[in-house]
């Protein structure tokens, strides 16, 4: 089932206004994530409540931190499926879940946030854990 643009646009914009580059095709994913240099946060966006109530508000808080990944990108699971699948190929050891977040450093996964680490948590708690990962891997 394709979600209407009217429904997903605010969910996209909630992330892009934080400075995330949205990747909608496998080619875009390859061009950006495939570079594999420096630190990068990949957010797998989702229409579910975990994303709305936890992940996106947490990103909004965490991205205010001074130390953060050099680049931040997002793909939209259930919407841009091919791009999402390609993005997941860069962290294929990890089971697909959405929403989820991966921090890559020089192409290697150094931190991963699964859906089970988001669901039922308050954004402040998720953000604090994310900021700790930023400080550890992106300083």
């Amino acid at each position: 089932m394709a979600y209407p643009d009217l429904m997903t646009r605010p969910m996209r914009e909630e992330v892009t206004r934080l400075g995330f580059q949205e990747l909608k095709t496998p080619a875009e994913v390859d061009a950006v994530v495939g570079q594999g240099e420096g630190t990068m946060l990949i957010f797998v966006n989702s229409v579910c409540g975990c994303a709305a109530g936890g992940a996106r508000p947490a990103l909004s808080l965490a991205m205010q931190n001074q130390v953060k990944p050099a680049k931040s990108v997002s793909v939209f699971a259930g919407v841009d499926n091919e791009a999402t699948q390609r993005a997941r190929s860069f962290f294929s050891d990890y089971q697909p879940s959405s929403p989820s977040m991966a921090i890559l450093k020089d192409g290697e996964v150094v931190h991963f946030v699964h859906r089970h680490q988001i669901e039922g948590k308050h954004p402040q708690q998720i953000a604090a854990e994310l900021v700790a990962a930023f400080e550890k891997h992106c300083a």
Partner: protein
Amino acid sequence: MSGHVFHLGHDDLHGITVVLETTSGKTVIGRWHERVEKGIVLHDAALNEAGSQQTRDDFIARSVKFGVKPEHRTLVVTDEIASVRKLAEF
């Protein structure tokens, strides 16, 4: 448990990935859907039984780190439950 109801109108644990341990020695990890008369309904669940090649601790640790590898789209756990914890608590 925080008492925070994640999905209004459902159980407190609805939508939360949990670790169920049964008195029969099974460990089941999956997303809690609901408790019904027959047992507990989980989605995207994985199962580890006593005597499996992978120990219970390894099964949980691997699920924490790499995510739950879903073996069952929907699974009704009918065994007597010994404990229920969120996977995120491990």
